[in-house]
């Protein structure tokens, strides 16, 4: 039996070896193509390679027509976290996108190169099965699924910067463009931070976003704390994730520049539930503000509660990661006196957005308008606009159109993309957790600052 099974494994080995050799010698269209230095080529290749694999909904022709696809439905891939602790911020964002796509279809779909297509959202959650929060590895897998479906011409999302890091290189080599409503980590797009060659291996920009980056959001929060709130001693904490640590570092740098004192900076990993000793440590340092970079799903609301029960009665300030219902629900009354920033305009202050807010409320979504519903709606519309301006229904053409997005007038104001894919419409808005006019605990809008073109 032994001999036989050894022979068997040998057989399998040699068979697979033979298989691989055949594959790499003559096999699949893309199986043995070296990474081209020319992006356009790469994008076309992949689109070609995957043509003919659409599901039953779209007719398959199987022919390779230079990266376009034949079918009646154009799909827009969406990657957001909508379960676990991220549900309260992910779902309202997705609703915004869904509204935009629904409206576009009601208005007759999009017309590309003389043919009218229906739009469809291809949604994938980036919270893994059984998970509690966003996971970069899941986003990476989702990226594969989007790439594999030739009907997907653009991707919206992800929500979290750590997930963007995982998706960007894949979508970039596939020549599939993505627009994030909310990623704020500055290293994703700006070459001066020395990371971009990892995220865009082809050198071509395929990633766009409408949120202002953390090197604006963090310092803006520092400005606000130091000059508006007149707070001078801060203790900085972060949740050890890409976004949380990044924004906390940016806050710290600016706060020190302004002349404030940073008493300490500790990383508190996600999954921490008992904040009593860390808050004792913070309280002993005697700060008049705690800045916490991170997301609500990483237990910052519990930290807020622990501040109160450690006798530390000073404001907590955070980035857009805590501006959600989760923070208010869990922290309850203790949330009062917290501040947060959002890297986008508060749509409720804009005349352009009145119609959107009405539509959102009329659309029958279960979740109320969130801080990123507007940006979600906006990125979907920017993508739809780019698809309609594209010369042909291909990923390449859509990317080209996206890069040329100029003065797009939407619910966030007027948006153009710079050479890195960042928005030129940079607004940071400030919120305070407080009782609103209706007597409910809410994030109350206090102010917003517009940053000019650099």
């Amino acid at each position: 039996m032994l001999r036989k099974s050894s022979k068997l494994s040998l057989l399998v080995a040699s068979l697979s070896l033979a298989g691989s050799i055949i594959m790499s010698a003559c096999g699949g269209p893309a199986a043995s193509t070296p990474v081209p230095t020319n992006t356009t080529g790469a994008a076309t290749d992949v689109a070609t390679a995957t043509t003919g694999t659409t599901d039953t909904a779209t007719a398959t022709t199987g022919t390779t027509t230079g990266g376009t696809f034949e079918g009646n439905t154009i799909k827009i891939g969406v990657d957001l976290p909508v379960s676990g602790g991220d549900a309260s911020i992910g779902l309202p964002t997705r609703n915004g996108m869904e509204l935009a796509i629904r409206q576009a279809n009601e208005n007759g779909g999009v017309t590309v190169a003389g043919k009218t297509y229906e739009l469809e959202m291809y949604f994938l959650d980036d919270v893994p099965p059984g998970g509690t929060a966003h996971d970069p590895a899941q986003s990476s897998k989702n990226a594969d699924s989007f790439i594999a479906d030739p009907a997907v011409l653009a991707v919206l999302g992800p929500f979290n910067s750590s997930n963007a890091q995982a998706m960007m290189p894949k979508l970039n080599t596939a020549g599939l463009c993505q627009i994030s409503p909310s990623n704020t980590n500055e290293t994703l797009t700006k070459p001066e931070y020395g990371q971009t060659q990892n995220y865009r291996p082809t050198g071509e920009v395929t990633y766009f976003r409408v949120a202002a980056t953390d090197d604006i959001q963090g310092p803006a929060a520092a400005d606000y704390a130091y000059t508006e709130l007149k707070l001078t001693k801060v203790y900085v904490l972060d949740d050890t994730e890409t976004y949380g640590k990044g924004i906390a570092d940016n806050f710290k740098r600016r706060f020190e520049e302004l002349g404030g004192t940073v008493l300490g900076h500790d990383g508190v990993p996600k999954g921490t539930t008992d904040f009593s000793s860390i808050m004792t440590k913070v309280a002993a340092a005697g700060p008049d503000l705690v800045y916490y970079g991170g997301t609500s799903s990483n237990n910052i609301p519990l930290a807020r509660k622990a501040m109160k029960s450690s006798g530390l009665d000073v404001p907590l300030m955070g980035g857009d990661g805590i501006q959600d219902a989760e923070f208010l629900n869990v922290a309850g009354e203790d949330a009062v006196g917290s501040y947060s920033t959002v890297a986008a305009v508060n749509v409720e202050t804009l005349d352009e957005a009145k119609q959107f807010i009405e539509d959102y409320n009329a659309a029958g979504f279960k979740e109320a308008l969130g801080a990123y519903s507007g940006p979600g709606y906006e990125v979907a519309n920017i993508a739809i606009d780019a698809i309609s301006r594209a010369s042909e229904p291909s990923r390449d053409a859509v990317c080209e159109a996206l890069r040329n997005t100029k003065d797009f007038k939407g619910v966030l104001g007027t948006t153009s993309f710079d050479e890195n894919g960042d928005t030129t419409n940079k607004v940071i808005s400030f919120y305070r957790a407080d009782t609103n006019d209706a007597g409910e605990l809410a994030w109350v809008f206090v102010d917003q600052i517009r940053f000019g073109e650099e």
Partner: protein
Amino acid sequence: MDLPSLAEFLQQIINGISRGSVYALIALGYTMVYGIIELINFAHGDIFMLGTFTALTFVAVFGIDSRNSALQDPIALIVVLLLTFVVTMTVTGLLGVLIERFAYRPLRNAPKLAPLISALGVSYILQNVGQVWKGPSNITFPDIIPETFIRIPIGEQFLLIRWKAVIIFSISIAFMILLTFFVQRTKLGKAMRATAQDKTTAQLMGININRTIALTFFIGAALAGAGAILYGMFIKGVQFTIGFVIGLKAFTAAVLGGIGNIPGAMLGGFVIGMVEAMSDTFLETRWTQAVVFAVLILILVFRPSGLLGQRVAEKV
């Protein structure tokens, strides 16, 4: 790095003791079960988690939720608190018995790894039950007891002791004393000790070992239920994932104290709580978890019998 002031240091010791009290209560369950059937009950942490959910659901009946916490009337408060303990401990206790009956008892004579893997499976099932029951995100655990402080001046600073910390500490010590008394002085306790020593002989002596083991599971799980209420009041927020890590730390505490040893489990709980508080103070919180697990590994490697345990030759 700045050394903490005296007040801060003392404050951290108090923090360590308070979180250690919760670990201690859960560690008792691990230690009892291991003592009697030599099984690391992985599901214990998740029984604890379901305990927090039970308590949460129960107090809501009295109108105590995230919006209306803390009853004002002291008598009502004590009654509700007592009822919460009774109900939660009964529920978790019965859950423990149920798990033993269906997942562990059939495997009592199987190779040792079989019940361990089964326990792991039960742990996953309970976690999923928690997730479906209360959803995947954090939920506020209401203040059943109002949050008040004792202030003790030390130099220019204050030592701030939460009344809750005092209550948690006293309750866990009280449970330990009760349990020690039960195991050492009552007939049932004697039966438990006999079963732990030698099941066959115990059976020959007329002890119903199935019932005795079930009782052990009931008491262990009920103590986890008590720990759950204390945890909820102290941390004020619960999530379906908390059982795993807290269970693991409690297990570390049980091993540290000497597994099978009741005062040892309590001591271990306090030590682990203290180690965590000190790691938060002197290192950074991002290292704390690693420190705790390093302690676990070092103890198992160098002193598997724990702080209070006796070195016994392994039965073969």
